[in-house]
């Protein structure tokens, strides 16, 4: 770690990414104020403060060399794996699932950090192997084990949403790294075949109810279908410019649950309308495109794949969150990146952006290996 290392690269800073990030988090802060009926507490100031911490994390990441990052990734992966096991054994119960680790002043969700660690370990793995070797059965199995090890532990917590997102992220990384199409087709087929078994043995009753209620939310408007129905009412009744800051009746009269976390997009749309949704979605699309461009310009395979993994996970979280809020998907507790309230989520997504910026700054550095 060397402060002087940074200066030559300062002119390479991808300011547009930082501005996009800041704008999206700012929307998040505004919505956190909105969610608290116009107050900075308890959400907004914490969200803003975490953004500051996130910037600090980005700075730290930038001070590491690509080589150091690669060296750290394996260690990070195993530390996270250990933490997940600890959580599984003595974690707190939150929302019917154990996923929090109380570390004195801060609650850490190891499953969130694991996402980044897993991306980097996979990227490192694909950095090491040649393109031909990447699609060999043994290597696909190794990659699958890297992904499934944490996924299984997280399913046991049970936090199905996070496990699912981790899996999607892993698949995205493998795709970006160049694993052949036939493996994805085979995996998709296998997943379909295993679905009924997963339904019976993996899902808790409340999870099954949520999924069933998705197909007919009006059948049980006060029960399991409540969230989705209220969310659709909020979005549907908003209009182009929305009901105004603090004006949404669904959110502010508490018909809309989880409005500062999982349903924050509904809050945005109810109060700021299609217009507000359009702005946030545009910013997110621009961020995704910018990140992909960074990935394509990065000359070492490790960082390129890492950036694609980070981008893909931002995309996947956003899409699942929006689909859920609009009633296109069963309710799974997945936050909207950078906007939803929640420390682990914001900090890991910002750390991910830190990796993207790092990749941009050090794009010309090469790393030992086959990359």
């Amino acid at each position: 770690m060397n402060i002087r290392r940074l200066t030559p690269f300062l002119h390479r800073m991808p300011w547009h990414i930082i501005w996009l990030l800041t704008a999206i988090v700012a929307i998040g802060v505004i919505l956190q104020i909105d969610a608290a009926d116009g107050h900075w507490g308890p959400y907004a100031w914490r969200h803003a403060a975490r953004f500051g911490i996130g910037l600090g994390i980005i700075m730290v990441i930038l001070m590491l060399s690509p080589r150091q990052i690669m060296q750290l990734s394996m260690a990070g992966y195993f530390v996270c794996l250990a933490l997940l096991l600890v959580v599984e054994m003595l974690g707190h119960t939150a929302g019917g699932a154990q996923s929090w680790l109380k570390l004195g002043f801060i609650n850490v969700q190891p499953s969130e950090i694991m996402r980044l660690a897993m991306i980097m370990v996979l990227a490192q793995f694909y950095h090491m192997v040649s393109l031909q070797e990447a699609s060999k059965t043994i290597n696909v199995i190794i990659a699958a084990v890297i992904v499934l090890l944490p996924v299984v532990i997280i399913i046991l917590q049970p936090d199905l949403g996070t496990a699912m997102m981790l899996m999607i992220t892993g698949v995205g990384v493998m795709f970006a790294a160049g694993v052949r199409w036939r493996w994805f087709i085979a995996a998709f087929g296998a997943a379909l075949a295993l679905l009924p078994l997963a339904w019976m043995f993996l899902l808790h009753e409340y999870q099954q109810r949520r999924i069933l209620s998705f197909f007919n939310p009006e059948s049980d408007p006060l029960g399991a279908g409540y969230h989705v129905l209220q969310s659709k009412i909020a979005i549907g009744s908003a209009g182009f410019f929305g009901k105004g800051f603090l004006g949404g009746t669904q959110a502010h009269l508490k018909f809309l649950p989880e409005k500062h976390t999982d349903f924050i997009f509904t809050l945005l749309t109810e109060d700021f309308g299609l217009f507000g949704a359009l702005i946030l979605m545009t910013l997110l699309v621009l961020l995704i495109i910018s990140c992909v461009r960074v990935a394509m310009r990065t000359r070492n395979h490790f960082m390129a794949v890492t950036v694609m993994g980070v981008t893909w996970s931002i995309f996947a979280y956003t899409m699942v969150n929006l689909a859920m809020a609009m009633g296109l998907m069963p309710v799974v507790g997945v936050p909207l990146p950078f906007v939803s309230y929640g420390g682990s989520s914001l900090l890991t997504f910002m750390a991910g952006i830190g990796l993207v910026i790092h990749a941009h700054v050090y794009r010309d550095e090469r790393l030992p290996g086959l990359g």
Partner: protein
Amino acid sequence: MNETKQQLFTRRAMLMMGAMTLPFTVMLGRIVGLQWFAGHKYKKLAEDNRISLRPVLAPRGRLLDRNQQIAAYNEKAFRLLIIPEQKEHLATTFKRLEKLIGLTANEQKKALDKLRTAPSYIPIVVRANLNYEELVKVQVNLPDLPGIDVDEGLIRHYPQQTVSAHILGYVGPPTREQAEKSQDPFYKNPDAQLGKEGIEKMADLKLRGATGRRELEVNAYGRAVREVAYNPPVNGKDIQLSIDINLQQMAYDLLGEHVGSVVAIDTITGELLVALSKPAYNGNEFAGGVPTDIWKKLMADPYKPLLNRITQGIYAPGSTYKALVALAALEEGWMRPNETVYCPGSMVLGNRRFHCWKFEGHGTIDMHQGLVKSCDVYYYQLAKQMDPDVLARYAHMFGLGHRTGLGLPEQPGLIPTREIKRKRQREPWVGGDSLITAIGQGLNLATPLQLAVMSARLASGAAVVPTLFQPESPPIFDVLPVKRSHLEFIHKCMFDTVEGGTAFGARRIGIPLGGKTGTSQVISKNHGDVKSYSGIAREERPHALFVGFGPIPNPRVAISVVIEHGGFGGAVAAPIGTKVMEAALKSLGVVL
């Protein structure tokens, strides 16, 4: 990085960029779809979520007596409530309340019933009338009674308690059917009270007023956040009654331990001044819904306190009928006033002997003496000339044999005719039927109200119609088609009855009253010549009756008194009747 790896990565990255941007248009399309194609539906749903319409109960109108004294009003009362959304361990809470204030199993069951149907934010009334001691006990223990609260509500109160119960009636919550089926917002109010009996029921719509409406913005838990609109209720109207609660109280006291009724009526306006039935229930005990234990006790009471004897008690009118029979005889010429009859104490018709109430007989007696002394043999002789169907016509003319139209549930009574006898008993009318009909026995049945109406019509010669309300303008009743002179003769006879006849003991010094006593047999057992019924079982004693009016010659008040199993009419019923009449005349300012 080797070249192919770089190329493949770039291709995959491009592919993923496309895959990551296109779905956003799908999401955008979804929002547009929700807003443009289903926006109306969702706007309405959002509005339905947000606005809650709550009924605001109008205070029920009061019942005032003819002198503006309060007969029924809404008293502030402490109520025991359950707030459904705050309750926990209800069984334990109920157990504690059982110990504290004797919460009954029935109250618990009712509360549980309401809890099942009511929304969680509307408090449920468990007991509507906590007394002060209970209030304190509950308040002190509130921390141990989660979800229980005490507030101040309005409860119907009858200051006279049981005195006017049958006339005033009582109120109670609507039936489940009413609450569920009716569109009237009144029924949507959890505190709604409506008239169940008596005037409370008759005048219910006026007393209720109009339910107001509060439009509240509510949050998801139903808790009000803000008032959007308020449409105040229209208070129920006070109802001015014809009765005089002081006279009611007096009649109530005069009846003492007796079971019976007193009805006094204004012969000019038809207003009922006194309408008392005893024993009675206490409407105050019913205000929060009738407690089962009290109801059971009332139902099992042999003196039937739930029966409104004024309109639903039916009695043989007995000798009180004789004035009417005499008038019919004059009108129809069955007997001339000065025509005499010899009464040896009984009369034989066919193979049956019919007794006069006086064993030794009245001797030679004319119509005047026949009525004043209430000689049965005189009326037996009269009955020989009498056409029962014609007599029945007179009875109906004077208000007997059909409902008076007061507005409360009424028994029609019965006035026998040849046809009625044939239908009821499948036997033809015989001479003996005429005899017992002429003395008001046999099939004759009348309610105390009908007897009072008969008395009022005899007094005024007009078709007086009884009412419980103060008329806005004095009503004009049809004059009955009977000769004035005949009526005046009857008045004279009845005056003499009080002054020196069977009701002699009941005369009021200085107030000229007319009256007729009656002692109506309840079983066909002849006690012979009895002077007192004190040694005879209560159920075997005859009913004591009295009808009357005053002052003579221009009567203003008419009365009927019926005392079940009271014994002699002259000894028991007449003194009560004349005392109430005197008080009524004084309160009307007719006599000083």
